[in-house]
């Protein structure tokens, strides 16, 4: 890490005396900190549950065998919901708001509305997850919480996350940036998709396997068009900002944006290859997954092209924000390539029902999305709080815990999934043999989950320490 970061000095401070910028940040402080603190608390809870789940897998008759609310199915559902709706959503409420306010010089005058949205969102999520532990589960990933939770979450989302669109509409200049397009698109898509999926799966369920079709469409939209698009917006902002140079091949960014939004929604049925849904729907999903390579290649040219010029990788390695963000950028390219390859019928026949799908999902939601959020936090928090990161050692522990932890998990899920897929394809292997093969990867999964937890605790200690240290509003603390 650079000398600046070793000393924990905030990165990316605005020029001294730029009172407009400080007013923008001061206006965001309340809602930003609410979203961010909530996100970190949920991340810790999700990490703990991930560890419990991996322990449950590794020793199925093990430590939690007589605990009703810790059955594997409930723990996995709670962990997934806390990670996505708790950690990633709250974090992007904060990061997207900050990004669009910065780019649009937007002074946030209705902070109480966003704060109200954040409070309602987190209380509703707490209620929903409590119901999961009580055994009120639906059978669809990311729609497991009781259906009454859905409309409340949608309203809370509008209150908390619609402000980037307002910031875009009220920007003083005509010029726009790629980050703004992605955030506006993501903020607009989620409520639509969520309400439609709630309606067609839980409130007025579609007939038979159409539910599975709607669910696959919903999951691909949430993961790609909300989480993925928000993370891409952050990469398009932080890469040139910290490197102090323009994005390589930036003229291609509009193509990346439109093709990403055009193709991402078609990829869902690729998860249903071999299922009892019409073949043409499965094929549409496979084509969508292959076409998603277009924006993936363009973003790879943009991001990696920028990092490959003028010693960009070396600077990325020595800068905390860039180190996390470029890790995420590489992960996104890897995700795009892997999901396209795995969608085709041959590989899909081998890999379906194995942990490979879990690995792919985490390549997107953790290795890409979460690492980019971490990078963004290292940039934004010092500016919002006016404080320094208390410990550079904890920053190192956080990076290495997260990076090694997710690489270990991905190894277990992707390679383990491949191995299990081969055994499942061989008719001679009994199911007990298949499970024995899979369980050999569970140890690596457990160790990696511990590493992730350690990394997250280090991040939380550092971040909470910084927030507690900052007593004065940023505008008075920094500029007056």
């Amino acid at each position: 890490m650079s000398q600046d970061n070793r000393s924990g000095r905030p990165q990316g401070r605005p020029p001294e005396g730029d009172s407009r910028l400080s007013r923008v940040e001061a206006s965001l402080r309340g809602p930003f900190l609410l979203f961010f603190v909530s996100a970190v608390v949920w991340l810790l809870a999700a990490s703990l549950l991930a560890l419990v789940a991996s322990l449950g897998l590794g020793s199925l008759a093990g430590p939690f065998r007589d605990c009703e609310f810790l059955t594997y199915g409930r723990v996995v559902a709670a962990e997934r919901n806390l990670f996505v709706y708790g950690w990633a959503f709250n974090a992007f409420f904060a990061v997207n708001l900050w990004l669009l306010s910065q780019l649009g010089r937007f002074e946030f005058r209705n902070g109480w509305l966003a704060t109200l949205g954040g409070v309602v969102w987190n209380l509703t999520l707490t209620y929903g997850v409590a119901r999961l532990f009580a055994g009120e589960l639906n059978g669809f990933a990311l729609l497991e919480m009781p259906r009454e939770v859905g409309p409340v979450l949608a309203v809370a989302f509008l209150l908390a996350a619609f402000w980037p669109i307002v910031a875009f509409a009220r920007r003083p200049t005509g010029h726009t940036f790629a980050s703004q397009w992605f955030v506006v698109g993501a903020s607009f898509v989620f409520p639509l998709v969520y309400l439609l999926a709630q309606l067609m799966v839980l409130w007025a369920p579609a007939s038979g396997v159409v539910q599975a079709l709607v669910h696959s469409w919903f999951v691909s939209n949430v993961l790609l068009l909300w989480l993925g698009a928000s993370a891409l917006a952050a990469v398009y902002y932080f890469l040139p900002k910290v490197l102090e140079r323009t994005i390589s091949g930036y003229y291609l960014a509009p193509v990346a944006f439109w093709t990403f939004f055009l193709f991402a929604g078609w990829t869902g049925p690729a998860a249903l290859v071999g299922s009892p849904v019409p073949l043409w729907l499965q094929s549409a999903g496979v084509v969508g997954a292959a076409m998603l390579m277009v924006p993936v290649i363009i973003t790879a040219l943009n991001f990696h092209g920028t990092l490959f010029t003028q010693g960009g990788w070396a600077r990325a390695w020595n800068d905390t924000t860039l180190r996390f963000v470029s890790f995420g950028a590489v992960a996104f390219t890897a995700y795009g390539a892997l999901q396209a390859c795995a969608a085709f019928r041959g590989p899909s026949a081998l890999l379906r029902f194995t942990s490979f799908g879990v690995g792919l999902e985490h390549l997107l939601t953790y290795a890409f999305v979460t690492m980019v959020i971490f990078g963004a936090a290292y940039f934004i928090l010092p500016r919002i709080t006016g404080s320094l990161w208390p410990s550079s050692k904890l920053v190192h522990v956080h990076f290495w815990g997260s990076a090694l932890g997710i690489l270990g998990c991905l190894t277990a899920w992707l390679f383990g999934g491949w191995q299990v897929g081969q055994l499942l394809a061989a008719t001679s292997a009994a199911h007990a043999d298949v499970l024995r093969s899979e369980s050999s990867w569970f140890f690596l999964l457990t160790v990696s989950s511990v590493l992730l937890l350690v990394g997250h605790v280090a991040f939380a200690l550092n971040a909470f320490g910084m927030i507690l240290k900052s007593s004065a509003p940023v505008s008075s603390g920094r500029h007056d």
Partner: protein
Amino acid sequence: MKNLNILLAGVFAAVALPFGALLLSGQSQLGGLGRAAGEEGGALFPAREPGLAIQGREVYLSLGCVSCHTQQVRPAGQGSDLARGLGVRPSVARDYVLQPQVLLGDRRIGPDLANYGARTSQINVETLLTDPASSGVVWHPSYRFVEAAQRTALVAYLKSLRQDYPSPEAKLKK
């Protein structure tokens, strides 16, 4: 890219297109499916679930069994489900028309259950839940806390799962 209305209209169109083409078309193709006889004058399938099985489905959902068990048999060429004896034919959309929540699943840590009720070598589920080791399935977690009435309902639900009837869309494996 500067006009918010155009940007939102474009994004809306990008979302609406797959929604219409995939979901609404899928609904119009599959939404009208109902029970049917495999041969003229034969009984209608899928059969309606008995009341106890409906209660058992709630227990299945509540315990999160769908995290580890699938309920779908893939066709030949898409995995070895038929060769492994998971079913006598691939699952078809009609098999699920009576299910209030379709539990296809996407992980197969445990075996597929689409045809559990039709299997000849059924393990004793009650023993499996209370004492997995003595049932010979050491990898299954213990669910000792599940009450006896719930266990009975769960067994009834599992026994109601069968796709071994003739369907107009799929032939039985010879």
